[in-house]
């Protein structure tokens, strides 16, 4: 047999919803911080653009075109990602849907819209976590980040489908953290606040973009938080509010 000694390679991250908004910004920021990044998004076009942009900056990135809510796609996403970059150290469940747009009162929300929100925002992160966390537990290290929202905590009228799905995602994250205690795998919830993204424009078209945080600034805040080690490191199960700029979020959300 031939034996070659393994070399410790750069950590690897997988970001869902990686072609736009916070997901895109996170992928770019993680690549900038030395991660090998796998981005997942439904459409090839925008996905390939972000991959090309990261590579042009000297980073390592790969794109996987898939719908995270497609049950059969999850094993393929996990396999392709690990084939391309090896073991995944960081999973960011960022892909989300608002549910019906314009946002509707619950009495006007179709059951199918609520189901779809739960499928994308809750069940897909569950399936992806199941697909990646086992290998992390076996290795004794890894981080899973679920991107949530203050709509998962506050009862904003018209945010029913989205808010309920995020509240459930946060509770699922706490239970993941409790079950994985002592394994070396962290599960964190991040509330990125209100950002200047297409999703925000879809939800609140009347909002003034100047009052919203840049996703790039929020992303670098999240990356800094994830990189913190020792006593400053975020404890598993924590809910972390990360703001690009505190002043801009002071007005809060209108309902």
């Amino acid at each position, binding site marked *: 047999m*031939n034996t070659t000694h*393994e070399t410790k390679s750069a950590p690897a991250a997988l970001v869902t919803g990686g072609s736009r908004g916070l997901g895109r910004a996170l992928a770019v920021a993680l690549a900038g911080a030395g991660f090998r990044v796998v981005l997942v998004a439904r459409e090839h076009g925008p996905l390939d653009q972000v991959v090309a942009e990261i590579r042009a900056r000297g980073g390592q990135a790969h794109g*996987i*075109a898939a719908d995270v809510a497609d049950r*059969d796609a999850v094993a393929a996403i996990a396999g392709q990602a690990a*084939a391309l970059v090896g*073991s995944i150290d960081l999973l960011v469940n960022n892909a989300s849907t608002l549910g019906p747009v314009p946002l509707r009162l619950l009495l006007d929300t179709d059951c199918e819209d609520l189901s779809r929100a739960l499928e994308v925002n809750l069940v897909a992160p569950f399936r992806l976590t199941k697909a990646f966390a086992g290998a992390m537990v076996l290795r004794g290290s890894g981080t899973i980040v679920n991107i949530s929202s203050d709509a998962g905590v506050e009862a904003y009228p018209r945010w029913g489908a989205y808010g309920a799905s995020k509240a459930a995602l946060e509770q699922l994250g706490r239970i993941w953290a409790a079950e994985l205690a002592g394994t070396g795998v962290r599960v964190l919830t991040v509330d990125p606040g209100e950002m200047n993204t297409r999703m925000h424009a879809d939800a609140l078209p009347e909002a003034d973009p100047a009052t919203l945080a840049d996703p790039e600034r929020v992303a670098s805040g999240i990356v800094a938080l994830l990189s913190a080690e020792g006593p400053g490191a975020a404890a598993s199960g924590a809910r972390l509010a990360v703001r690009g700029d505190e002043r801009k979020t002071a007005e809060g959300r209108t309902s």
Partner: protein
Amino acid sequence: MTAARTYPARRDDVRLLVVDAGAGELHERRTTALPALLSPGDLLVVNDAATLPASLRGHDVTGAPVEARLISSDTERGAGHFWAVLFGAGNWRQRTEDRSPPPALATGARLRFGPLAAEVVALSSLSPRLVALRLAGSDDEVWAALYQEGRPVQYSYLAHDLPLWAVQTVYAGRPWAFEMPSAGRPLSWEILLALRRNGVRWASLTHAAGLSSTGDPALDAALPLPERFDIPAATVAAIAETRRQGGRVIAVGTTVVRALEGGSAPDGTLRAGSGVTSLRIIPGYRPRVVDGLLSGIHTAAESHFAVLAAFAPFDLLRSAERYAEAHQFKSHELGDAMLILPRRHAVDRPLLSCAP
């Protein structure tokens, strides 16, 4: 022995035949009892290879149907290169022995599997069915197409198709396996975490399990072909620590045996890293690293039996086979399990905590 035709209701609750090589006894348990069957200080070593969608269906340039089952990475030629076993017309409902041969293909022949273009770059002297394939495209393109077009290798004795998620262990990582490392199928996190609470440690390696059978007698006689493996430094350290403390190294599956035995020097020393092993475990083989084995139910007619025979007396294994047959244990990928526990080590301690 009857093959299991579908999944058990719970992956971690199947029948377990315990072969106690020390006492020369057989015990019937269930896999849920595994945490009580191993002792503090023992080490369970698993193969964390995820299973690839290794079966591709397509055509040659004349339109003749071809199924390619990838059997190993062609590490000499590099990325996008695989060794594959080819079949002609037919499908997985037929036994591989009954499948028609592939069209005669020369070096340079082109094949197409949906969006995936492939070229035959070499033929094997082992069998006309075994060829080296180059899958065209960048790494990203090849893996995307493979996962879009490929399906896990299917089995004629199953009642239904196996989707990709169904052929993964709960700890699957890098997709190196061409068939499921199925000995690890009954392991759930409930069991793994209970083992750890009981003082049993676990460690992992990655071994590129190849096809277990091809239906071509000449090729089957040569299996397993050389397979690549990667043993982390943490696993080497855990094995050394286990030996120092008199614990037992229990391999989950014959692929783990092959990696650890094939990766070790004749004096039993093991180095971390990756390599390729062509070790074939034949009757009389004396293991240097592994003490015991969790596996599926195998009969003396299978090549896996030689691996079992490295860990327990032949007569005891034949008794186990007869017991499994008489008590209708299920064999094959989705079947029941067998745990071979070795004779005691110098450190004396009870082997089984339960009475028969």
